């Protein structure tokens, strides 16, 4: 039975119960050390000796210290001493069972995968993929994994996708947004080609390690860095469209995760305007940019912007397209969007069903 059929069977088996699909759950290891033990000895020793060199001022800490430990809800720390997101039982209690999650897509972050060392990046991504299956999916069939790829090394990324492509426990390929180059650039195209050939969407989750967080330099505070993640998402959307990725891979589905959503119509309009003026620079982009966005790009909701007038969201959702929006919780992080309270605007039953359930069923690889 396919993953999709299993999900639908679960739903049908509990009439009257509401189910949701969550496009953003963060699994964590019991501790950073416990994950490191999964690496080959060569890389374990490397990390113990040299740390995890990224692109920031500290040996073992982000340049923007988080406001809350592990950026997590205070109540998400398991009693066994592990990290938030590491304990399946607590995850079930706080999120999966509580909110009727029929499918939760795992989005593993970091653990060394944001390093500048390409070989280390490859080793960590391989370990992340095995670990998701062994520690989560094997014990909790409602959770599905992402193929995390060493995105700055396309041949290695392609090999990693190929390794897992036939395993239906993986429902998407995952990249992270703070990259060396915008994702429309040619060096990333082999990743899209491989993903498309297996019917896998590509999720771009915010985060990573890069240079200056803004085109005007380095911000000082987490309060600012948090916003720059929106910008990195916008940069990739712009790049994918204008470098012609969707023109070349019309079947490619991209999911933008945790980068916000309300800015999309404004950016699409801006791109259409500029394309009408400057289209001669990008002749490979044959349609107005907004058309590619509508056809190929999906947006996860968390962190949901909160207009003063909540009903303003309805126009924004309509402009984005009701079929292009996927609910995300971001469990167990501090800015978690509880599915019961995330949407302040009054959604119709049908609109809510699309966002919370139906759209995801057709975006992820669930056959």
């Amino acid at each position: 039975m396919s993953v999709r059929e299993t999900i639908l069977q679960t739903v049908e088996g509990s009439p009257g119960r509401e189910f949701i699909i969550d496009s953003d759950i963060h699994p964590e290891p019991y501790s950073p050390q416990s994950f490191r033990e999964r690496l080959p000895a060569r890389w374990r020793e490397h990390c113990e000796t040299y740390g995890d060199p990224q692109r920031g001022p500290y040996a073992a800490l982000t340049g923007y210290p988080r406001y809350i430990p592990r950026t997590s809800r205070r109540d998400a720390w398991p009693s066994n001493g592990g990290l938030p997101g590491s304990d399946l039982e607590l995850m079930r209690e706080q999120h999966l069972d509580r909110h009727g999650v029929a499918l939760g897509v795992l989005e593993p972050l970091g653990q060394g995968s944001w390093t500048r060392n390409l070989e280390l990046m490859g080793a960590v991504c391989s370990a992340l993929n095995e670990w998701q299956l062994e520690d989560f999916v094997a014990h909790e069939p409602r959770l599905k994994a992402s193929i995390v790829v060493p995105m700055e090394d396309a041949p290695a990324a392609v090999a990693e996708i190929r390794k897992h492509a036939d395993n239906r426990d993986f429902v998407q390929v995952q990249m992270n947004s703070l990259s060396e180059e915008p994702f429309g650039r040619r060096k990333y195209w082999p990743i899209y080609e491989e993903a498309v050939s297996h019917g896998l969407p590509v999720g771009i989750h915010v985060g990573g390690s890069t240079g200056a967080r803004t085109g005007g330099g380095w911000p000082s505070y987490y309060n600012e860095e948090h916003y720059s993640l929106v910008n990195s998402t916008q940069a990739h959307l712009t790049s994918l469209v204008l470098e012609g990725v969707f023109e070349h891979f019309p079947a490619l589905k991209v999911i933008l995760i945790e980068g916000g959503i309300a800015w999309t119509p404004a950016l699409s309009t801006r791109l259409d305007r500029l394309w009408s003026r400057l289209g001669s620079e990008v002749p490979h982009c044959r349609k107005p940019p907004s058309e590619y966005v509508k056809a190929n790009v999906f947006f996860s909701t968390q962190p949901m912007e909160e207009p003063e007038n909540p009903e303003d969201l309805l126009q924004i959702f309509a402009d984005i397209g009701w079929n292009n929006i996927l609910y995300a919780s971001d469990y167990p992080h501090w800015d978690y969007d509880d599915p019961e309270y995330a949407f302040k605007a009054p959604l119709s039953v049908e609109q809510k069903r699309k966002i919370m359930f139906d759209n995801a069923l057709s975006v992820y690889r669930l056959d």
Partner: protein
Amino acid sequence: MPELSEARPDGGSNGTALKIDCDVHPGVPTVEALMPYMDDYWVDEFRNRQIDGLEIATYPPNAPLSCRPDWRRDGERPGADRDQLSDVVLDTFGSDIAICNPVYGGLVALSEQMAAVLCRATNCWIAEQWLDRDPRLRSSIVVPAQNPILAAEEIERCAADARFVQIMLLVANELLLGRQYYWPIYEAAQKHGLPICIHAGSMYRYPTTPSGWPSHYLQDYAATPQLFTAQMQNLMSEGALARFPGITFVLAESGISWLPPYMWRASRTWKGVRGEVPWIKRAPSAEVRDRFRVTLQPFDVTDDHDRIEKLVEQIGGEHMLLFSSDFPHWQFDGDDPVPSAMPEHLVRKMRTDNPLSIYTRLREDK
């Protein structure tokens, strides 16, 4: 929000409302034009080394956006013809006053000395070649942000001339603009009651996105709102906004429609982490409404009455918009920079009341 009705009940002269264009771009034809305002050393430098072509990378002179096709003049830099600028901006568009924002190489030079020389020369050139010759023109003071001490000196020098009505900075520099490094500029601005205009344009010191360099000019220009959000976040986060309560910041050529989602997201984040930046006392959306204004062009909103009303409501009200044509940049066609669906009450506000409320020098000197 300041009350304007007292300051200027009927706007300008002739019993009609004074109409103000808050962003037009005279073009420096060649560096030769600035040489009368430099010392011998710099004249020799530019001449002997044949340094010219100092238009900034944000506006390649031949790019379609840099000059509307019907305003192009063979062999001339966009906006270099003073009569054309006055004809189009003042006579055709029906403005009484236009504020010049000369965007030129001094703003981006890697040498801070060269930056200072070019900015000073640009200000002298604008005063003598433009403001002296058309009494309807005003200007921003362009300053070398590469060296804020020199920038403050230039502000002091120009502030004596009341035709300089604000200070202009580009939206991407060596550091984010909230940093104390730049505070001498704000000290001078506050002292003279001059708004700070943050204008589109980059020194190109960093990749134009947090995820590296895109391939195209189009993408760089599309990413401009990102730079504005970065500056707004930084002006708040470093405490600069709180430290200089007298300064209004004008976002020029930024576009407008990105503002509401930015305000919502920044306010939500601030609610969660405001303990990190306790000097931000109010939600960023409130700071934006109180301390920032935004110019009209490029108007990146669907030209629809209800959509425009909604947007203006979302960004904080009818006091937020400042009319601009952005001449000679190609942002619209035809003879009216005001979008056809713009509600009438907003037109009066943005063309007259809103500019007069922040450009105090326009109230005083006419």
